[in-house]
């Protein structure tokens, strides 16, 4: 077994080296598909980071009806204290709200009086527990708060997060489609290259069959060759991906662009590297497996 694997590796590698030209073609196309996959993975990893960061700061405000009685206020407070999603809450009275307004907008000091008194309703500011800081979680909480007696309005700042997550979903769909097309073309290129190589070695394959080589013994080196193509392509594509990541982050940092400057903070984690390399190896294996089968019919 071990001897056979050693033989496959040696033969596969030597054929890869001897047929550099043809193999370069399939390696290149696998690199392109893995690179595109990698770009999408980098973007989605970073978007996920941003989403997570933003969600951490989600604050939910509930505005209460004016002139709420003491028991009604206590009822709301009691409900808030038993809701599992809420980490802590702070009561902001009408007066405090007005104070804040005065502090934040000193130039508009006279506005409340101009419109006839304090327009700010009493409210609660809620801090949400980490595990509930998802769009769906916050939405669910908001709608259940909305149903409480004495609550006039619930507001939460999720618009940006919602938009970003829509963009992410779109990005994912485009990514899956594009990567699918590229993987298909990579498999078919590898398969055609291996078929050409196998065709050039048809006599050799026939002779091996005649002296009693099993089909696995003949197939082995070709499968290894395909896998090596994918493996090499995987490593190169990660290298190129990392270089372009560094380059893009460098220029983004230079431009101090507030909107995009913080978009790229991490490269892919190690398990993604391994995923890309094994994905490439699998693409090569599939390509060679598809093409070599028909040469081995007895």
């Amino acid at each position, binding site marked *: 077994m071990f*001897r*056979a694997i050693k*033989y496959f590796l040696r033969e596969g590698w030597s054929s890869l080296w001897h047929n550099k030209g043809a193999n370069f073609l399939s390696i290149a196309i696998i690199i392109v598909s893995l690179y595109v996959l990698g770009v999408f993975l980098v973007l989605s990893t970073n978007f996920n980071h941003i989403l997570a960061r933003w969600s951490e700061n989600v604050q939910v405000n509930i505005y209460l009806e004016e002139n709420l009685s003491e028991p009604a206020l206590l009822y709301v407070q009691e409900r808030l204290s038993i809701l599992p999603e809420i980490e802590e809450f702070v009561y902001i009275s009408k007066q405090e709200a007005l104070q804040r307004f005065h502090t934040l907008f000193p130039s508009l000091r006279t506005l409340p009086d101009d419109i006839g008194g304090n327009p700010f309703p009493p409210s609660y500011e809620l801090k949400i527990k980490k595990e509930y800081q998802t769009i769906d979680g916050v939405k669910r909480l908001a709608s259940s708060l909305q149903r409480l007696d004495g609550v006039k309005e619930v507001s939460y700042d999720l618009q940006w997060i919602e938009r970003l997550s829509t963009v992410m979903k779109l990005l994912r769909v485009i990514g899956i489609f594009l990567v699918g097309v590229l993987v298909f073309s990579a498999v078919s290129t590898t398969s055609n290259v291996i078929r050409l190589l196998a065709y050039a070695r048809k*006599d*050799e394959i*026939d*002779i*091996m*069959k*005649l*002296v*009693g*080589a*099993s*089909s696995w*013994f003949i197939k082995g080196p070709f499968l290894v060759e395909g896998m090596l193509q994918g493996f090499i392509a995987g490593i190169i594509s990660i290298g190129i991906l990392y270089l372009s990541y560094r380059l893009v982050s460098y220029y983004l940092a230079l431009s101090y662009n507030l909107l995009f400057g913080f978009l790229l903070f991490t490269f892919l984690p190690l398990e993604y590297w391994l995923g890309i390399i094994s994905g490439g190896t699998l693409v090569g294996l599939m390509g060679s497996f598809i093409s070599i089968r028909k040469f081995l*019919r*007895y």
Partner: protein
Amino acid sequence: MFNVFKNYDPVSPALIDISLHIRKGEFVFISGPSGAGKTTFLKLIYREELPTQGQILVNRRNIAKLPPSKIPYLRRSMGIVFQDFKLLNNKTIFDNVSFVLKILGVPVSVTKKKVFNMLRMVDIHHKMKSLPPQLSGGEQQRVVIARALINDPALLLADEPTGNLDPELSMEIMRLFEEANQKGTTVVVATHNPALIGCISNKRVIMLDKGRIVRYY
């Protein structure tokens, strides 16, 4: 073989109604002019071709019904000397011969010794690092013979094994075959050369002509 027919095309059949029995350990010549069906006869035995009709049993196994996955095992029990050599041109002489042992999973150290001895027996050991195209026809033929005998086969099939050899070397090769036969290998040699048949005693000759057995002696 029982009532075996082989047609490549319906007009001129390659073998017609062949029935014969080759015993274990026998030395048999298949003779006849070129086009008589000698090569087809051998190809049926190593399952390169299937009979159009009839049954062929090799070592009690019906070859016509052998599943493809079992064909390599059938061939591993045979040594075959092909008329057109069928050597791997991009591999050295040593690798060509050792390939058979590699398939069988023989350890490298044993393989080295065995291949070297076999190449010495056919007097080609001094060229074991050469590639087949660098060798003359006669030299290549000796490599093919070495490859066929390296795994001590139960059955040796040789298609015109001395076609490219001078008479002296031909005799030498036939002696090798005879030696293998004495060790228990069944030998079937297809040849159109009557001189070759004369040099082996205690053998059977089956003469083919236009696909039929015309004489047995």
